[in-house]
């Protein structure tokens, strides 16, 4: 089943743009719930977004260097 992963709100910070810094996994690879799915950076901080589900990464919708906001579709998992 296809599952759309959207960028979650990070704690209490107001929505701000972040940049996709690094995808630690490739399309076709399996990721477990809670493992690092993608790493983002803001001006002076880098943080990782945990995978909300266990599944296979089908498609990276955003690429390294793209700007993203809370709620944006970032990837599709097959769960």
């Amino acid at each position, binding site marked *: 089943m296809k599952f759309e992963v959207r960028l979650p709100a*990070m704690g*209490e910070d107001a929505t701000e743009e972040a940049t996709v*810094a*690094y995808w630690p996994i490739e399309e076709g690879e399996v990721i477990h719930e809670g493992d690092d799915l993608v790493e983002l*950076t803001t001006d002076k*901080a*880098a*943080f*990782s977004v945990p995978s909300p589900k266990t599944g296979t990464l089908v498609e990276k919708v955003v690429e390294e260097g793209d700007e993203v906001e809370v709620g944006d579709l970032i990837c599709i998992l097959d769960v």
Partner: protein
Amino acid sequence: MATEFPTSPPAARSIETQRFDTPVPYQQAFDMQRARCGEIEAGRAGNLLMLLEHPPVFTLGRRSDPNNILLNASQLREKGIELHYVDRGGDVTYHGPGQLVAYPILDLSQWRLSIRWYLRSLEEVLVRLVARYDLPGERLDGFSGVWVRGAKVAAIGVGIHNWVTFHGIALNVAPNMTHFTHIIPCGITDKPVTSLRQLLGDAPPMNEVMTAFDEEFRSYFLDQPPS
């Protein structure tokens, strides 16, 4: 008559401090940070403040532009400066002897789940620290770090994993400032870098600055209302 004590005192937040007397290689310090992060995330360890100096090294964040390093590989070797790519925000930074590096490994769930608040908090600690030397530390809109009279005296770059922090701050006490001329620090071309030695005419001993930072850091973070 016996004094009555509260039966369950509130859980105390604590921060352990670890000081290093000799320069710690960048990779070694990084591995120690990540190991402690893992221990904290697993609930097996508490908050830690690492205070140290590095041997000469240029570090690039994930979004760094390698063109901000103005030396090639053989020139770096000649000058004895290492190069590391690291998982933090920010651009090119220099670390070396004479610069106080502080790596707080904190579980932010004990404070606030806010990266912005954490960055501002580190700046506040640094402003209080330089105030001990009668220096007016300032934040500059749009630039992180701490500035004195328009020059950057401390840099900030943090990483967050499951709300546990790593990386941190670097305060120029009395480093070899010529090494900063080999980079465009944080990609900012028109803002100078300074040190406590340049600002004060004479540098306080590193040991003293470490102690002062430790005190300011603890008093700020342990005074914050619990989450």
